[in-house]
């Protein structure tokens, strides 16, 4: 399906409306395979909307999105194809509360990839080990701390062996102590070469792993640059203002 040379995500002239509200305006964005991108911007700027369009949780109204060579168009089969290859981690974890951690992770491989339970659970355990909570496998999400839950959510995404991972503010619902444990996992994923699109305000993380930082405001991409340049020499005024606020206190 994918050739190594082609970009992981290509967005061309994409527009998104909620009713009459113009949420994303003429977005152009190309993400190469293995690239790690951090998206930031003020609240309501359309960051979540952008990455939700990438796996078609939101339908866009015009323009093209191609993910791993598959165009997101009216064809339902294409959507399914993209979702199989793109994982997503949410701000509020969205674990399935009525299933154990292991079941959470093994569910999709069993249903979507049609793997036998044994194989799915074996793999799920591997990923739970990777996020360092194999011992919690039999617990229910409600019994875990926020940080643990988010790590389970990451393991759940990984269990589908996605080629691209999307993160929507994965640490912003966590207590300060737990943020670092989740960031650690994300850093290690980044170091392994996973293609990542990450909405976050953790600027430390951005500095450490991002290949590119994208700043959005009012539905537009205002600026995109490697982190050194982005933080060191922000070009637009809005970016400067935002950075001063966010790094300020």
């Amino acid at each position, binding site marked *: 399906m994918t050739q190594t040379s082609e970009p992981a995500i290509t967005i061309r002239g994409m527009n998104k409306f909620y009713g009459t509200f113009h949420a994303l305006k003429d977005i152009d964005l190309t993400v190469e395979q293995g690239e790690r991108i951090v998206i930031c911007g003020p609240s309501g700027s359309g960051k979540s909307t952008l990455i939700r369009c990438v796996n078609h*949780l939101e339908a866009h109204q015009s323009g093209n999105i191609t993910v791993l060579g598959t165009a997101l168009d009216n064809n339902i089969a294409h959507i399914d194809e993209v979702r199989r290859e793109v994982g997503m981690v949410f701000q509020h974890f969205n*674990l*399935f509360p009525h299933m154990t951690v292991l079941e959470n992770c093994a569910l999709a491989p069993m249903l979507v990839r049609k793997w036998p339970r044994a194989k799915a659970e074996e793999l799920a355990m591997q990923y739970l080990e990777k996020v360092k909570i194999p011992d919690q496998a039999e617990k229910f999400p409600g019994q875990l701390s926020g940080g643990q839950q988010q790590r389970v959510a990451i393991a759940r995404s990984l269990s589908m062996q996605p080629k691209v991972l999307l993160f929507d503010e994965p640490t912003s619902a966590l207590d300060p102590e737990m943020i670092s444990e989740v960031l650690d996992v994300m850093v290690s994923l980044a170091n392994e070469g996973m293609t990542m699109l990450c909405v976050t305000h953790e600027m430390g993380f951005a500095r450490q792993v991002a290949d590119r930082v994208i700043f959005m405001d009012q539905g537009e991409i205002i600026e995109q640059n490697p982190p050194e340049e982005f933080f060191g020499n922000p070009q637009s005024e809005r970016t400067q203002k935002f950075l001063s606020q966010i790094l300020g206190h």
Partner: protein
Amino acid sequence: MAMTDQMGRTGMLAVLRERYFSSPGNTILSIICFAILALIVWTVLDWAIFSAVFSAAKGPGACKAADGACWAVIDARWQLILFGLYPHEEHWRSGLACLVVVVMTVLSCIPYFWNGRSISIIWIGGFLTFYFLMKGGIFGMTVVDEQRWGGLSLTVFIFVSTVLVGMPLSILLALLRRSDLPWISGLTGIIIDSVRSLPLLTILFAFAVVLPFVLPDWASGDKLYRAILGSALFFAAYQAEIIRGGMQGVPTGQEEAAKSLGVRYFHRIQRILLPQAFKNALPATINQFVITFKETSLFIIIGFFEILASGNAAYGTGNWTFAFVEVYAFIALIYFAFVFSLSRYGAFLERRMDVGDQ
């Protein structure tokens, strides 16, 4: 704001005093309440037990002479009440069938059996056993037409099959109503609201009596099944709204998470949405069961010998006509036993789920 005595003084007596005799007004109210309660209890006990006639052996005359309840009518006519018009020699089958349903209900109340497979096996198996016991035609049992079914087993049959047919229908309606497609959700909404605006009686009447005029002969089926279909539709319209309420309680993130894992619609519904929705909807669902069970009594209007009609027939004969209060009391007790255990069980379930939740 004076410092009140916070510690100590626990124990029954203190609690009683605190609760019921803390002030003169409170005391008077408590005494009045107690007196009323005692009066009611005494009157009922006297009527139902101390002055009552229990045996039918002495005939109705003994009842007319006594002040209390005439349970003799139950003694004489209980088979009619419980089994209705079912052939007398075959009453054991009707009784056994009821037992099957009770066992089936009890089994499905045990958490151990709470998975799709066991539940389906228990219900479908139990239901088929019930059906063939009642209907006969296999293992040399004589065939007994639905026309002759009656009493408690008919009531139970109506209830169980209403729920069995209505539940999947309600899930379907709930899903259709929350569909993204405006025409589908709109039309489903109209259907649900219309059914809910109608008295059940009119729906039963329409299905039992009017449908045969409208359907070709081969499609009409037995009157009983038509009426059950109507009652299932009514149940489903209410239950659909309950389930939809439960679905709204499931955060949208759940479905989004499943979507982003590539899980298809059917599996999302089955594995993610419905389990959580049902959990949210449980109290209301139990309540709906209770209401549905009570409403089986409306089948009398379209000529079925469910338990209320059997009751009517039980006192509807020359020498027992005066004893209808006792018959109603007996039937009310049967209803109560069922309804009460249902609601207790519902309370138990709720507590159980709260514990699992944390």
